[in-house]
């Protein structure tokens, strides 16, 4: 079933004086089905974060529209946006964005507290997720007391605890070493395969993308190509992604 539909999205940044225009997204259209794990790849500056911010309703497209579960973003009034976001989407960012003032537990519970969930229900939801992500022993610690990988897993837990329709991740492995990256990506895969979560992940690492079921390539603000995993194992898919990158991006030198 079609969950997310992006229709002819264009984004133009204008400087304050309106003199210089920067076209971040030219004309982007694609759809994401329920239960998919989609990776978006592209060089630095190709418009990945811009696209994700629009999908997250944190930013508005210059033209075009985004529909989530058939509902157009444009139809959501501004004052309902934060609630809409809270109820339907979970975010994972490159630099974790955990609050230093909360323990990991409270960081994870934050979105539930904001939607005024009863204490009992919050706690019953927390434990299975924390166990699945392997951070159940760390819940009482503060973000500055744990490693980057653990922080990121807490951020993932925060993203999924509201049981959102879709999880959006912007370079979630960007600040992690390779071991922690693999751990996190395995978590993503588990969430996708076992819990049936739809995931959309922006990355510039072919290794990270090889965990997805589909990879979209973006260049200069346009969708350039896409690859399906099919029946491939990670390794084979990785090789295809790398091959694709080197064919499609002027020798692939600026990827990564």
């Amino acid at each position, binding site marked *: 079933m079609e969950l997310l539909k992006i229709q002819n999205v264009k984004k133009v940044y204008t400087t304050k004086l309106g003199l210089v225009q920067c076209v971040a997204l030219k004309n982007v259209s694609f759809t994401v089905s329920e239960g998919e794990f989609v990776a978006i790849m592209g060089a630095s500056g190709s418009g990945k974060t811009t696209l994700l911010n629009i999908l997250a309703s944190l930013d508005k497209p210059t033209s075009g529209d985004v529909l989530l579960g058939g509902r157009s973003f444009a139809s959501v009034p501004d004052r309902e946006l934060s609630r809409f976001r809270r109820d339907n989407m979970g975010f994972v960012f490159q630099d974790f964005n955990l*609050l*230093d*003032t909360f323990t990991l537990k409270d960081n994870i519970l*934050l979105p539930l507290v904001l*939607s005024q969930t009863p204490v009992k229900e919050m706690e019953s939801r927390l434990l299975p997720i924390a166990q699945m992500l392997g951070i159940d022993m760390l819940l009482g610690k503060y973000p*500055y007391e744990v490693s980057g990988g653990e922080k990121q897993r807490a951020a993932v837990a925060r993203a999924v605890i509201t049981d959102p329709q879709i999880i959006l991740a912007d370079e979630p492995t960007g600040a992690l070493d390779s071991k922690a990256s693999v751990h996190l990506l395995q978590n993503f895969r588990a969430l996708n395969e076992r819990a049936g979560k739809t995931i959309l992940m922006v990355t510039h690492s072919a290794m990270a993308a090889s965990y997805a079921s589909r990879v979209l390539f973006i260049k200069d603000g346009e969708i350039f190509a896409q690859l399906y995993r099919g029946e491939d194992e990670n390794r084979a898919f990785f090789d295809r992604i790398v091959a694709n990158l080197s064919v499609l991006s002027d020798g692939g030198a600026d990827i990564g």
Partner: protein
Amino acid sequence: MGVRTLAKGFYVKLAWANIRRSREVYLPYLIACAIIGGIYFLVCGFAMSGELTGVPGGESARALFQMGVIVFTVFAAGFLLSINRFLVKRRKREFGLYGVLGLSKAHVGRILLLENAIVLLGGLACGLVFALVFGKLLFLLLLKLMHALPQNEFRPAPVAYLATAALFLGVYFVSSLYNLAQVHLANPIQLLQSEKRGEKDSKLVIPMALIGAAMLGAAYYFAWTVESSGTAMGIFFLLVLLVILATNLLFTSGSIAVLRALRANKRFYYRPQNFVSVSGMFHRMRQNASGLATICILSTMFLVTLCGTLSLYLGQEKTLAPQYPYDVQVSGYAPYHDRLGADAKLAALAEEHNVVMHADESGLNYHNYVEGEANPDGTVYPGSELYMQPHSLYLDGTLHFDLEGAEEDREAFLDAARQLSMVLKNEAGEDVTYYYRVRDIWSARQESYGMYGGLLFLGAFFAILFLAVTVLMIYFKQITEGYEDKERFDILQQVGMDEKQVRGTINAQVLWVFFLPLATALLHMVFASRILTRMLQSFMLYDWVLVLCCALGVSAAFALIYLIAYRMTARAYFKIVKR
């Protein structure tokens, strides 16, 4: 050689760039330096220049200022050093970054020395200019408070310049040593991480909070119940110390204990507004509790100083009245020995000088000023010797009378009366001359205005000093917290809190952090007013209502200034958060 000058220019440039880049911090620091420097210079000027000696009551005022210089030196140096400490501490990360970027510690140290020199020199210069421009005006104001006429212009003595320069040089020396130590003692990694340290609470939070509460309770109890002015004077500084310690403990540990209790209550804690506020307060209190305690203590000092000096100044007539039930008192052996003769002699002298002396019994309607028992029905002690004389009233060896006539005539009469004497034979048969001791309310009043006017002036200077430092600390807090909260603000929005909610929680938090010190200071003041009243009794001031009125007035004025400071600094804060 060429390389060296180039390098030197480079350091100056870098230091100057640093100052400009953080001008939102350095500009207020500079202003504080200017205020402290300017006031210090003026206090030195008043204490060390001859202008005050000429005016009536000036000697006492000058002596006061000379004592003030010593206390002022301690406070001014302490404040400047602690502001510097605060500023350097929050820059540790930057020093670490320099280290990582390959600037050696010696280089960083040199930049710091230069920055420090630029700001202190700039502040000193501004302060001196300000003091020279407004010094004359303030001198006239001082004379007005002293009810004295200006005799000559205020021209600060060279030694005042020297003292001020010495103060700043000393501060520069000590603060530079501290800064260099900060840079040299830590390695870059530590420096880079220093902002993230220290979020763990000690296990002693609850006992510490209890000790703090007990100390404050004890201090309040003694301040409220102290009976004699002698004891009050004796224990005042002890109580001040106790209150300072208790305030610190309560702010650092007490706040954490309360917040913990709130957090333990899950039904309360896991509500959107409370959730964010309580955790935010945790963070704030862990980092800034002692800063808040300092603000509170400084505010209390401001209130007590100004209230005490203002009460004394405004209560002067009330102090004089019991001491001078009549305008003039003549005592000594002669009037005691021969009251009727003395009365006649003085009356003759009065006629000679065109003044009239007279007395009735109404003047006895005063409260006895001897410590302890008041004399509420206005009668004289039993056993006192009281006789009405033709022109005066004789009470226990002293002649009291009012004096009417032109001012010059009165003065001439008093001078003449001081020359009166009487020759008597002592036991060995030798002649001994006994002079009359004449005291009059006019010179006492002049003396009193000189003393208390000077005291009020000095008190106001101290108050300005406390106020400047308080406002500066509040401002610094807002700025540093602004940068932290900006991050929080952004993250909360990403997680799905809407902007209005975020603004609401942050507002509530800022209000708490801001008004906690004010409320505590006002509470301290309530109890301080009691012991202050007792202490003022040693100055013959028996008027709790007056002290209370002064306390109220000063508190209201302070709250207003505090509010204005809040509004202004909150604007700086929100500018950062919304950027």
